[in-house]
């Protein structure tokens, strides 16, 4: 599901008017000239990427860099606009039948692949078949399994049928469309990865591919024929820089135009005049939250009072202030505040250690031997929190939680493990007591895979083995309707159930902290972040830095 992956890393939403979350437009003395420059074609935009792209057919990759590059080269039938509404991209219009079972797309007629061939409904059918083909190594097949039939009515009209209402039906078609004339034989032979398309892609998108030097850079140029108009920025260069420290130095030397900052860089190290003149800083909550999860198969954590007690013992604001330097927002559930599915009226668990102790006492945990650690049936309350290596933020969160739980008489050990080992040996095998990890959330509120009791198998995502019949029912209802108001009802209730249950302790949504060179204009922060209108970004003629191209 491309939108979901891109959402995670790319289409981050900016929310105005939230405490401490306003966009800070630095270098205000520059405001005059900012308004003056008129849109102009030209210049090169240099972006820093910490990881190399995995390939140039994003339908079969799952890393953020590939999807970011792929999003400029390819288009889907639909996309999200600045207010997160689904709007047409390659599709001119669509109709969803009243029973939500039939979806009819009308495609744009003037669209050409970068090699000049016309884009038609056959390409859409081909992309669909590719995603379903068992020989295609994709992680996004699931979304297309709900489709029961796909009929091409004429070269620019498609009808898609579903056997039961599927809430994400429309969003599914944001998947990148692939050119049939270049890929058909590779897909049939199961050699999609080896196709030249994966190195020198031909798309329909706003930018054409020029060069990919593995581990070094990817170069794209504006596609003057694009159906949404020629993009202003003539060239885009993705520089692959695997060290965060180096990216930061490149920013200081103005070697890159766009990069993400860490909290400390944002608040302490970029507040000097020259930096604020050269870059505009943005800040908005990201689409991912950090949580403390429990293995609910463990009888100690199966007791809801224990989990609620922990929620009272942890001070979320303290975590945000201490670890993120204030650049984040408390999470009350798995939905981001200010999105349509978010329900602010759920039970909350303010920091209250006395309450926590009382709840634990109710659950039978008392300090009978006077060693400062609660015990029950002769067993002290001690457990280990696992988290992944290389993530300083989670490690610090774990340490603060360790301290807070110690204060209510619970002994916590912290263990950090390499990502692959953590997932394979501990998470999948359920060999953990508690974990601190994060979840990326999509723009659609369907989180069936994470919370439904049927998804607790070894390769599935309900690691914590959460099972609540009411939550199950709400998740089923929520994904089976295509009317937003109805869905909202179900998801509101789901958030109440989750808040009451505290299957995990929802900690915070951290902020995304990108900076963009101040010579670039046309950026309009919105609930959909800043990158959604990239093709309308421009540099006024007199401030263009790289004249070539």
């Amino acid at each position: 599901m491309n939108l979901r992956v891109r959402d995670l890393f790319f289409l981050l939403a900016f929310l105005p008017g939230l405490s401490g979350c306003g966009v800070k437009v630095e270098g205000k003395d520059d405001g005059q000239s900012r308004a003056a420059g008129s849109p102009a074609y030209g210049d090169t935009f240099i972006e820093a990427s910490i990881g190399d792209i995995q390939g140039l057919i994003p339908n079969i990759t799952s890393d953020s860099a590939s999807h970011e590059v792929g999003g400029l080269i390819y288009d889907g039938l639909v996309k999200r606009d600045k207010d997160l509404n689904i709007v047409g991209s390659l599709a001119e219009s669509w109709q969803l039948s009243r029973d939500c079972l039939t979806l009819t797309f009308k495609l744009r007629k003037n669209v050409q692949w970068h090699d000049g061939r016309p884009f038609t409904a056959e390409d859409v059918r081909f992309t669909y078949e590719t995603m379903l083909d068992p020989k295609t190594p994709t992680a996004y097949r699931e979304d297309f399994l709900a489709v029961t039939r796909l009929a091409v009515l004429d070269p620019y009209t498609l009808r898609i049928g579903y056997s039961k209402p599927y809430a994400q039906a429309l969003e599914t078609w944001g998947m990148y469309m692939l050119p049939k004339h270049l890929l058909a034989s590779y897909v049939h032979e199961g050699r999609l990865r080896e196709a030249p398309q994966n190195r020198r892609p031909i798309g329909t998108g706003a930018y054409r591919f020029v060069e990919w030097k593995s581990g070094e850079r990817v170069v794209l140029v504006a596609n003057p024929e694009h159906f949404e108009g020629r993009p202003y920025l003539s060239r885009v260069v993705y520089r692959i820089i695997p060290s965060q420290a180096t990216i930061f130095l490149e920013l200081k030397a103005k070697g890159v135009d766009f990069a993400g900052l860490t909290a400390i860089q944002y608040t302490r190290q970029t507040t000097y005049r020259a930096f604020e003149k050269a870059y505009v800083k943005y800040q908005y909550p990201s689409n991912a939250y950090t949580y403390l999860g429990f293995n609910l198969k463990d009888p100690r954590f199966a007791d809801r009072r224990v989990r609620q007690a922990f929620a009272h013992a942890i001070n979320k604001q303290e975590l945000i202030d201490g670890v993120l330097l204030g650049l984040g927002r408390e999470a009350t559930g798995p939905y981001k505040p200010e999105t349509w599915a978010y329900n602010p009226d759920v039970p909350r668990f303010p920091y209250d250690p006395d309450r926590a102790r009382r709840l634990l006492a109710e659950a039978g945990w008392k300090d009978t031997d006077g060693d400062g650690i609660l015990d029950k049936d002769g067993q002290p309350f001690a457990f280990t929190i696992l988290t992944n290596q290389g993530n300083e933020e989670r490690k610090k969160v774990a340490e603060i939680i360790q301290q807070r739980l110690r204060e209510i008489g619970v002994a916590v050990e912290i263990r950090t493990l390499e990502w692959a080992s953590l997932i394979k040996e501990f998470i999948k095998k359920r060999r953990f007591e508690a974990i601190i990890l994060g979840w990326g959330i999509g723009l659609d509120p369907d989180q069936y895979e994470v919370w439904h009791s049927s998804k607790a198998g070894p390769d599935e995502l309900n690691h914590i083995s959460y099972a609540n019949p009411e939550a199950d029912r709400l998740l089923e209802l929520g994904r089976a309707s295509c009317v937003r108001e109805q869905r909202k009802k179900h998801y509101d209730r789901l958030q109440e159930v989750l808040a009451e249950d505290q299957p995990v302790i929802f900690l915070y949504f951290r902020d995304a902290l990108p900076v963009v060179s101040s010579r670039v204009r046309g950026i309009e922060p919105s609930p959909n972040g800043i990158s959604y209108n990239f093709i309308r970004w421009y540099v006024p003629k007199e401030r263009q830095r790289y004249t070539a191209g």
Partner: protein
Amino acid sequence: MIPYALRRVVLAIPLLIGITFISFLVIHLAPGEPVELQTGDLGVKSSAQSIESLRKLYGLDQPLYVQYWSWVTRLARLDFGRSFAPDGKPVLQKIGERLPITLFLNIIEMLLILALAVPIGVLSATRQYSVFDKITTVFVFVGFATPDFWLALLLMILFGVQLGWLPISGLRSPTWEFLSFWRQHWDFLSHLVLPIVVATFGGLAGFSRYMRQSMLEVVRQEYIQTARAKGLSEQAVIGKHALRNALLPVVTILGLSLPGLIGGSVIVESVFAIPGMGQLMVQAVFSRDYPVIMGNLVIVSTLTLVANLLADISYGLVDPRIRVGRRGRS
């Protein structure tokens, strides 16, 4: 001599097979497998079926010995297989993309180290305990103790950010393709200055010490006294008689560092964003890209064996005593 070399080559084959078998085993024992890392990006929908089908696609559902056998039989035909990464490139192509820059950097670095370490070593040995010797000793300790990445960042801040004389990272400027022919070359070379300085600084410390040590030993030998006694100039004594002999152990170390030439330094490459072998290997390990890891290991271990062999043979060529002894045996 030739039968001896042949025997060594034949003996190297089972050794190589042993190395590959153990590496293969160890890598597959490491927890985590490539399919999980491709689908397990948290937040991405990945069903049990799609993981299973990926496993099948890569042959990871087979028992380990079957996987090893099919890998070895392909290797015997010099087929290193394709990367598990979604780009699906042949392993040799991936290595081929990364090798030239690493090799280029390492050879320049090695030449620079030699050009600097030999004179430094000789001078500090012949003027033992002089001011020069003391300064270089301090310098060497500083060199040993300085972490590469730290020195790199300091130099980047000074020359890249503050002075703006040199580019900070990467190999080419973003507008490289629009530069003139000569400017392109200058641009490329200017990107290499800092990485080479950092890598040389680290290596220089060790090599100059070896050189000093070896020279100190040689100048105490009787034949040096003889040379002096016969009235040769100091220059001839040190430059001709002592240096040649003192270089022997250094050449050995040089030979053994041959495999290191293609290995690439992970730290220098990451900090300077140079797409070389070190980065390729580290990424392959983190994503459990077995074919790339194994391909890399085969090439490096083959080179190590070749380097060992060459070192042994060249000993024979350089040192008559060894040559005579071996002839006697073979």
